[in-house]
């Protein structure tokens, strides 16, 4: 457009009317912006967790005469939980590799393993929460426990959603095969799942390990 010379009659060299805007919207192939958009979602989700971490950081030492982290956290259990999430991350990675190779059955197997590890993680977390509440260290006991349950519970809720999403995609792949749309969805879930693992690193470091140091 830069070479267009203005003439009095408002026509360019070819005699076409001058236009200073694009008539057609720039075309994007279907789903081309999904990954970037999903990344933006993950980043905004990251901010939700940042706020919950900040709340925990501020309230984490307000015990109101109730139990302290050292008394209630069982580190071996947390270590097992962390291992579950790490295993699920590597099995999801292998599922993505199988997807790239177009080996659907093997991919489904790795996804099943991922779901299984995710389910183990959730069961252990439920057990931990149930034990805490049973011991009288429920979310209503102190500001520390309220912020603890909110932070860890929100992460657990994300994992639950990820698990439901995983099962949904396994059914989708079984029904429609490894079509482009399913591949794109699996890539999004891959980012989501690995992102949850990154958040968990923050949780076990700031909540459990540093809590046990106090």
């Amino acid at each position, binding site marked *: 457009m830069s070479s267009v010379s203005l003439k009095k009659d408002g026509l360019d060299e070819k005699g076409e009317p001058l236009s200073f805007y694009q008539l057609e919207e720039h*075309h994007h192939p279907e789903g081309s912006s999904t990954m970037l958009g999903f990344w933006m979602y993950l980043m905004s989700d*990251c901010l939700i967790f*940042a706020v919950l971490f900040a709340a925990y950081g501020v309230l984490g030492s307000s015990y109101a005469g109730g139990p302290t982290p050292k008394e209630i956290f069982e580190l*071996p259990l947390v270590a097992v939980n962390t291992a579950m999430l790490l295993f699920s991350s590597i099995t999801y*990675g292998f599922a993505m*590799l199988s997807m790239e190779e177009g080996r659907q059955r093997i991919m489904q197997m790795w996804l099943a393993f991922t779901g299984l590890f995710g389910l183990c993680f959730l069961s252990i977390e439920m057990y931990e929460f149930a034990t805490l509440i049973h011991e009288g260290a429920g979310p209503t006991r102190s500001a520390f426990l309220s912020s603890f349950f909110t932070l860890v519970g929100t992460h657990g809720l994300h994992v639950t959603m990820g698990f439901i999403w995983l099962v949904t995609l396994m059914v989708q792949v079984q029904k429609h095969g490894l079509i482009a749309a399913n591949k794109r969805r699996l890539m999004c879930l891959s980012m989501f799942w*690995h992102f949850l*693992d*990154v958040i968990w690193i923050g949780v076990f*470091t700031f909540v459990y390990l540093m809590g046990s140091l106090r």
Partner: protein
Amino acid sequence: MTDRHATPHDAHAEHAHDDHAHGHDDHGNDHASHGTRGSYLKGFFLSVLLTAVPFWAVMTGAFKDPSTAALVIMLFAVLQIIVHMIYFLHMNTKSENGWTMMALIFTIILVVITLSGSIWVMYHMNTNMMPMQAAVDM
């Protein structure tokens, strides 16, 4: 018809062709940076190591000084987050023309402000707060 006034249908066809020629990478649709079995395993073993060491340090009480221990496990957490970003989330400066990295940097800045700001401000509020007993005595 000149190409500037091509019908929408023609324009689509041309663009689609164009995208296959060179534009695909620009749209990040061609996910070449998918990692290999080796890179996944490498990331996995690194993160196992970076998880196991802090757990070991806290559970055995290897550090006498709690603040040293806190610093060390925070360092391990940062390292592990970087490992996950590179080996599992395949972060690099080139994907989506660098926009994922931009979004990440922006988010990290916001997270740091939120966390350090809240903790810093609330710590001072707490220390400057009148003790409950003093308030009752007045």
